[in-house]
């Protein structure tokens, strides 16, 4: 485990990573306290100032009803990040639980769980999400759950292979030999050791989830306006690409920045894990 000093040194040597952390911190701050960044109203617009380009008064311009796009992006952080986190949590918790069960118990249970996971992967994820959203009803939370379910197979697979790897490890064998019960081994040795790669996958999935939520918005299954959410901001502004490019470009770049940042951070976590 690198100590604080080496970690700081890594950061300084890699400005990209530093910027990535900064982007994520800003995104989180915007989610928690949007008032820090803007005092404009994200919901009520000023019709007289509709479709203004980016400038001093409106950093990202205004939309078709005169709402400040920057304010909408900032206020959208909370819902977007919540949706993404929820999606990842669903995948992480349900997928890991399945993988853990399969890898740890083995036998017929393993076969059953893994065949189920096969099925989830065999059904195209977009189809699964579409069907789930239709079943659960429209809205961001439901979209997040649908995206989460459609991604959980990967977590189950990874968790299972990690458990299998750790399970045969020397320390687990030793613990078993010294009479520790399975549950103890699971909690104390297997879980902590297999969690690393799974968490890396979770950070990668964060980026994937943002994009999937936005794709569903594009197909008409997204957040319900006027509540701003990044995916639906990009999707909703696309009709204006020719006439008011800022409406979709700035939210799009925000999404890109956050996804890139999580990618970079997850790569750093991965490399540290492997080192």
């Amino acid at each position, binding site marked *: 485990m690198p100590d604080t000093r080496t970690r700081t040194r890594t950061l300084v040597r890699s400005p*990209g990573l530093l910027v990535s952390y900064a982007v994520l911190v800003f995104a989180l701050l915007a989610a928690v306290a949007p008032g820090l960044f803007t005092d404009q109203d994200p919901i009520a617009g000023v019709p007289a100032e509709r479709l203004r380009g980016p400038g001093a008064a409106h950093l990202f311009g205004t939309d078709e009803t005169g709402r400040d796009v920057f304010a909408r992006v900032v206020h959208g952080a909370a819902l977007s990040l919540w949706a993404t986190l929820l999606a990842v949590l669903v995948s992480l918790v349900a997928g890991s639980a399945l993988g853990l069960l399969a890898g740890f118990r083995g036998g017929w249970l393993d076969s059953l769980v893994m*065949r*189920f996971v*096969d*099925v989830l*992967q*065999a*059904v*195209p*994820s*977009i*189809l*699964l999400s*579409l*069907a*789930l959203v*239709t*079943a659960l009803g429209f809205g961001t939370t439901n979209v997040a759950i649908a995206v989460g379910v459609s*991604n959980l197979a*990967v977590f189950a*697979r*990874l968790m299972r*292979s990690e458990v299998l790897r750790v399970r045969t490890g020397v320390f687990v064998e030793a613990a078993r030999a010294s009479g520790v019960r399975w549950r103890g081994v699971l909690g104390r040795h297997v879980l902590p050791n297999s969690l690393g*790669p799974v968490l*890396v*996958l979770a950070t*990668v*999935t964060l*980026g*994937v989830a943002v*994009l999937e939520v*936005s*794709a569903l918005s*594009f*197909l008409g299954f997204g957040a319900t306006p006027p509540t701003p959410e990044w*995916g639906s901001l*990009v*999707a909703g502004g*696309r009709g204006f*690409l*020719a006439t008011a490019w800022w409406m*979709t470009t700035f939210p*799009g770049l925000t*999404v*890109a*920045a956050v*996804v*890139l940042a999580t*990618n*970079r951070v997850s790569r750093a976590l991965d490399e540290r894990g492997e080192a």
Partner: protein
Amino acid sequence: MTRRLLQAVAVIWAAFTLSFVILYLLPGDAALNRLGAAEGGITATPAEVAAVRAEYGLDDPLVVQYGKRLWAATHGDFGKSVMTGDDATGLVFDALPSTLEIAAAGLVLAVLFGGGLAVLGTYTRHRWLGNLLLSLPPLGVSLPQFWVGLVLIQIFSFQLRLLPALGTDGFAALILPGITIGLPTGAIIGQVLAKSLRTQLAEPYVEIVLAKGASRARVHFGHALRNAALPALTLVGVVAGNLLAGTVVTETLFSRDGIGRLTAFAVNSQDIPVVQAVIVLSAFFFVTINLVVDLIYPLLDPRLAGRVTRKAVAAGA
């Protein structure tokens, strides 16, 4: 091998069953969709709705409906689309060529660009150029696909007027949809190939070959790339499935027919025969690809293969 085949059949059966269950959990049914599709809402009386339900066998007990469908499906018959009355299998096979076209175009472009970036990025002696090239693939997976497609259309079709935004005539009509659908896949290929190239270049044999007087290019392309390409190629098989997922967005943007459009419409209207035909087809693809990958695995370094698949699946999810 028999065991693997049986498992494959079981997966297809389970996909069939799962789609049946999900579609029945949705509120309403295909008959309501069919009758309520008109502007202004439904005009039929409850008795008429019941008659239409009966016509499509939607009033049978669930178990009976399921049994009938399963039996017919084993004979390759998924029934008729409730919305259009067409044979569901026929609809899928009508839509398939168009989807395969853009998927193939996307895959070729993905391999060319993803591979090209990885090779150039690791080959160049200019550190900044390498960093720049290698930072492009992550960018590729961080932009919403529909947004990329719209920007491409806006620039190359509407502003520069170089390529068509719609239509299916000729090779030119495949370029923009190919880029749109291939972008995320190309980005994954680029990332994985760059990583395994770096790993290869750090191997001791590189020093030895160089010491023997081989040129840098020869080491890079002749040895490292050959060794690194294998896992990336396995990856291509896996991401081919991901390409199919991108079709609904790409087909909508470029006004093309295809599996994605067909599926989205069928799910929306709870057109069970069509949805099941699509699902069984894609499950069939999935298990076939997996069987092939399983057969190829032993031919590769097992350690490497295991790791690459995990990464590929993670990145492409």
